[in-house]
């Protein structure tokens, strides 16, 4: 039962970490290697608002979301737009931005363990004999909610439909009057906000450390490669595959093999099925 409970929690946490990356790539085809840095930065912004400016916690998270969304849009408009379509340049540029953010934070003194965010709800509950803290239940609830909201957004709103159009065929979308650059900018903003939201809900489980940025990026890439780059459905499914595989590894092999699971998943997918579970070779619509 502990495998089922913590496997589900771990999987949803992975999905939360990866959704922003998958969304940006799915729409703009830009692999945002600054994703992990944005995740960590959002945590530090919330911490600063909460502790240095005394802003209430919920409002701090809200302001962080807005700021991070603007940051995502700015990064696209002033950096990534110039290299869009050049895959290697996109990777180099976005990774450089991520490095600058993370190492800049470290240089600025954001190091050590004193940067923590409070949990949303204090305490824990025993589920079938297994202790689970309320914050992890929030992770599960919010993870499901985000998937539902994203689905509804991309199926029932004009912007969402335009984003889907972009993801399916950029040239066709252009012919229908959809501005691809605006949509890519919107996708970067939403992707950054999703990274920020993941940070807001996951970081209270631990503390905010610069190194998390690199881990989150690796996990997001692993999830997206296994799921098929650009496919949200694939990303969610891959999150469950990797999430459960990690927990099973911890239980039967040991915790120090946990990270190997994600890396092994990348290697095996690239060897056996380079497009991933729901990648380019699948129905285009499945990507959104």
């Amino acid at each position: 039962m502990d495998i089922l409970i913590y496997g589900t929690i771990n999987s949803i946490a992975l999905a939360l970490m990866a959704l922003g990356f998958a969304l940006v790539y799915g729409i703009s085809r830009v692999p945002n290697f600054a994703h992990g840095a944005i995740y960590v930065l959002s945590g530090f912004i919330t911490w600063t608002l909460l502790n240095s400016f005394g802003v209430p916690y919920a409002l701090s998270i809200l302001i962080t979301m807005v700021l991070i969304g603007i940051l995502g849009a700015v990064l696209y408009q002033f950096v990534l737009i110039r290299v869009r379509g050049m895959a290697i340049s996109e990777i180099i540029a976005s990774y450089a931005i991520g490095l600058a953010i993370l190492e800049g934070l470290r240089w600025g003194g954001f190091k050590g363990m004193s940067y923590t965010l409070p949990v949303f709800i204090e305490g824990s509950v025993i589920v079938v004999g297994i202790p689970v803290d309320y914050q992890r239940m929030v992770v599960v609830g919010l993870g499901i909610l985000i998937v539902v909201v994203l689905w509804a957004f991309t199926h029932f709103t004009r912007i969402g439909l335009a984003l889907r159009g972009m993801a399916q065929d950029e040239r066709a979308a252009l012919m229908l009057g959809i501005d691809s650059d605006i949509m890519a900018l919107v996708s970067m903003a939403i992707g950054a906000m999703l990274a920020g939201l993941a940070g807001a809900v996951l970081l209270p489980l631990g503390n905010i450390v610069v190194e998390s940025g690199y881990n989150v990026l690796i996990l997001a890439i692993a999830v997206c490669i296994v799921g098929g780059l650009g496919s949200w459905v694939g990303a969610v499914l891959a999150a469950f595959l990797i999430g459960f595989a990690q927990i099973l590894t911890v239980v039967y092999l040991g915790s120090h093999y946990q990270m190997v699971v994600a890396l092994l998943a990348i290697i095996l997918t690239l060897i056996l099925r380079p497009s991933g579970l729901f990648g380019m070779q699948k129905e285009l619509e499945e990507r959104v």
Partner: protein
Amino acid sequence: MKMKGIGILAALTAVVFLVLPGAYALAEKPITLGCPLSTAYLYGWDAERGIQLAVDEVNAAGGVNVGGIKRPFKVEVLDTRDLEPGVPVSEALLAVEKLILEKKADFLVGGPVRSEAALAAMGLLSKYKKVAIFTTGFLSPKFHAIVAKNYDKFKYGFRIHGEAVQLVKEIMACFQEIQGKYGLNKVFIMVQDVAHARGGGKVLGKVAARKGWQVLGTEIYPTGTTDFSMGLIKAKKAGAQILNIWMDMPESSILLKQWYDMRLPALPFGSTLAAAEQPSFWKATEGKGEYTLCNVVNAGNAPSNATPWTMKFYDAYAKKWGVEPEGLGSSSSYMAVYVLKDAIERAGSLDSEKVVAALEKTDMMGVYGRIRFDPKNHQIIPSFDPKEGAVGSILQWQDGKRVVVFPKSIAAGEILLPPWMKK
């Protein structure tokens, strides 16, 4: 008028006599202390602060008497990054070599911090015949084994703090105390995937089993792990009563938060537990880390009256840096500067061979007791009694404070159990 003139002359003479020795010392060529430290991490910055504090004190008192000439110390710090996950040992070695060749360090004090990096750096000490005092984080027992085995090659290295085997002895003695008081005898070991922690955990497991403890399992975590829940559930299922933790990563505070959230009926006992050593631990865990025990290796890293110098150092550190001594490298790094000063003055020279010989004869009362090195392996001589040797320190977080609970000779309180463990 004449009296006024004499007064001014007397005052000037006094100023000259009082100030000149210090000023003269500062005018002399400084003795450069190269400090290779992982500065973004606790065991790096606490050592840097300890070294800087001691250097400031020594320089303010006139400097180091080298064969009749007073010379000041100068600190050169380079970041080895060796505590960061994924950073190769070669980074630390580059920093060490740069300190020797570019910064012209006369001596090395501090790290490298990670045992793997420090052991690798010993080859460089031989190559450049550079005396180094290791002061922080380097806990592997391989150090003194290597020096003893190949003395001529590795004699330039000294370690001024406790090491893993001594830590295990102290922890086992403390375990026995807990067993006697509360009847606990089941231990679950959680270690970080680094040399000193793996080695320490393994040794502790063996020793504990020999002494009749039930060792229920060992869980190894990669550096940077942020979720310990499955390991904690394993420990709970196994019926653990003590969680023995060997981790120097800041993420170890998460482990304690998760331990509290699960109300796990096992007393957390950090053999090395960087998070719990720091005064900011209480805030970082929002008080959830209460009852955590933690070995801070040497006295002075937590408040106690081990020697008359202990609280003097403690208060000076807190005054200078605005925070109490934070980690296992604070008091030892501070003492290393005074020990080196003493050795240089006795040697009357900066010559490596002479300073090595002088360091081997070191015998002084310091912050954490009597400081002496074993002349055969250059490891500081430990003791449970500060009058006899370097005394360790195990603290417990109680009501927001770090209370030293072991050894008895310097303890300021008793070991307590969390309320959910009381029968």
